[in-house]
């Protein structure tokens, strides 16, 4: 079955922009939503909310540790506080505050890290978050979401607001291809099978979902049938979908814009080990920091494109035989 017609992958907005718009929508219906930012609101796009609801927006200055704990205080006092900065800053500079003021007391704090991964390009490694999903998953009780496009980001922000408990949502800087029609349902702990296939399964999240679709199209032309799953819920993870992929395909490729050592690949492998062990290959950042360059050049050099996923898929299939 030719799969190439299923997804146009027309370019859409960056997921940070979708986040900013979703916050405004939430703000209109829920007066309890408040937002904190650490002098990056023009970049995280919380400035949309700040413009619409200035009395519910708190500028924290360049002080992420304080921002996270202020957000926890707001949430503990009954607000639904969203705190936002670049992923690299809010998770690394705010990690201990996320741990002690949000995760441990199970406070209803929402954390959105934008400019995640290495696709921010020119700014280079100090601003690139390659360990954020791992850090967020190291916070017991946190829900962790990594949406791929406009519709899924908007859904993720609404899910985060509705969920009682701490949530981390990962957003990106660059424009992202559209994958889902508006109104597609998402759920915490869910995943979406975007392409059916039985030779192997490609499990991706975030920016790599579109690349996984492109890889599957290439593989299809080679006579390889690849299932593509958007694993947008990182924690809790869709164990059933992983188990089914392992059982039905016998080979899994995990693709992510994150360090391989501590990324979603490791989490998927754990689930497969506990359910149906299978051949696995991993596409991600390999024990290194990246460098400056255009986003396109950086993701190519560090091996995060469809061709890298396709190569990993061929390797997995060769091992399977």
């Amino acid at each position, binding site marked *: 079955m030719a799969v190439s017609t299923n997804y146009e992958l027309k370019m859409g907005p960056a997921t940070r922009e979708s986040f900013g718009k979703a916050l405004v929508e939430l703000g209109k219906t829920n007066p309890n939503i408040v937002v904190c930012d650490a002098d990056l609101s023009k970049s995280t796009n919380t400035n949309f909310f700040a413009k619409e609801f200035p009395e519910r927006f*708190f500028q924290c200055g360049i*002080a992420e*540790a*304080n921002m996270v*704990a202020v957000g926890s*205080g707001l949430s503990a006092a009954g607000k639904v506080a969203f705190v936002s900065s670049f992923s690299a800053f809010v998770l690394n500079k705010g990690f201990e505050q996320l741990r002690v003021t949000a995760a441990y007391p199970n406070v209803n704090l929402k954390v959105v890290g934008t400019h995640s991964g290495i696709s921010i390009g020119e700014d280079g490694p100090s601003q690139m978050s390659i360990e954020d999903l791992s850090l967020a998953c190291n916070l017991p009780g946190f829900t962790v979401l990594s949406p791929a496009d406009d519709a899924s980001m908007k859904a993720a922000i609404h899910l985060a607001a509705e969920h009682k408990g701490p949530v981390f949502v990962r957003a990106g800087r660059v424009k992202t291809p559209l994958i889902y029609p508006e109104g597609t349902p998402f759920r915490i702990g869910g995943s979406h099978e975007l392409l059916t296939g039985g030779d192997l399964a490609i499990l991706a999240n975030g920016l790599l979902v579109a690349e996984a679709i492109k890889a599957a199209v290439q593989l299809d032309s080679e006579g390889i049938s690849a299932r593509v799953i958007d694993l947008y819920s990182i924690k809790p993870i869709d164990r059933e979908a992983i188990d089914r992929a392992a059982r039905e395909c016998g080979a899994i490729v995990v693709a992510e814009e994150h360090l391989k050592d501590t990324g979603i690949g490791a989490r998927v492998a754990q689930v497969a080990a506990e359910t149906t062990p299978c051949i696995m290959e991993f596409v991600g950042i390999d024990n290194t920091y990246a460098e400056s360059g255009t986003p396109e050049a950086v993701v190519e050099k560090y091996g995060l494109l469809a061709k890298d996923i396709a190569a990993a898929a061929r390797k997995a299939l060769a091992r399977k035989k």
Partner: protein
Amino acid sequence: MNKTSNPADLAEISKRVRRHIIEMITAAKSGHPGGSLSATELVVTLFFDTMRHDPANPKWADRDHFILGKGHACPVLYSTMAECGYTPIDQLNTFRRLGSIYQGHPDVRFIPALEASTGSLGQGLSIGLGMALAARLDHRPSRTYVVLGDGEIQEGQVWEAAMFASFHKLDNLACIVDYNKIQLDGFVEDIMPLEPLADKWKSFGWHVIEINGHDIPAVQAAFAEAATVKGKPTVILAHTVKGKGVSFMENNPKWHGTAPSKEECELALKELA
């Protein structure tokens, strides 16, 4: 609970709280007596006189919020809350045992009436600022009180919070520094001096009140003054004595985090009779 503004009554309650502190740390064979004893009048005056709160309705929306930034001094908080009727007095001696509600540092999972889980220094003031913001947004009369240790304010986050509080004009929050001059490794002056401390807070835009933190009328007056200050947060620098009330513990860094032996406990209780 019976609230009181009578300094003699508050002194009597403080004495009972000090006895609880000594007994529970002795029973646990671990804990932090020095900084619990130094903060006793501050915490007792807040809970028995100053604060709006109701032990029968701990989640009352209009209540005042109390956060103990220096979470290791939780024996003073547990004892005071127990005296108020929030939690059982007869279980104070289960402190630090598996399953006890009186965890080693304040833990909201075990005592929901606590406002925050603390223990990692430097975070309490920021949490309090969030609560103060929420109260202002909701037009609630709630005031927020945060007690910090003097060593604790060596944490950089405290100064991030100090900048934030004055910029956002959080006059519904008061921060109290239990300035007992001693931290775990020794005297604050030898570890990382804080002076000129009043000038530091003033330069960060705070209203500063300096008192003897064991002088109950002075403590009452400081909280009353803080409530009248508009447009800026207030910090109360409470000069205290670490280990206050037990002669052999006073001003001795050893008693920051050491439990008394049974004999030392008896000696201490005699002094607190």
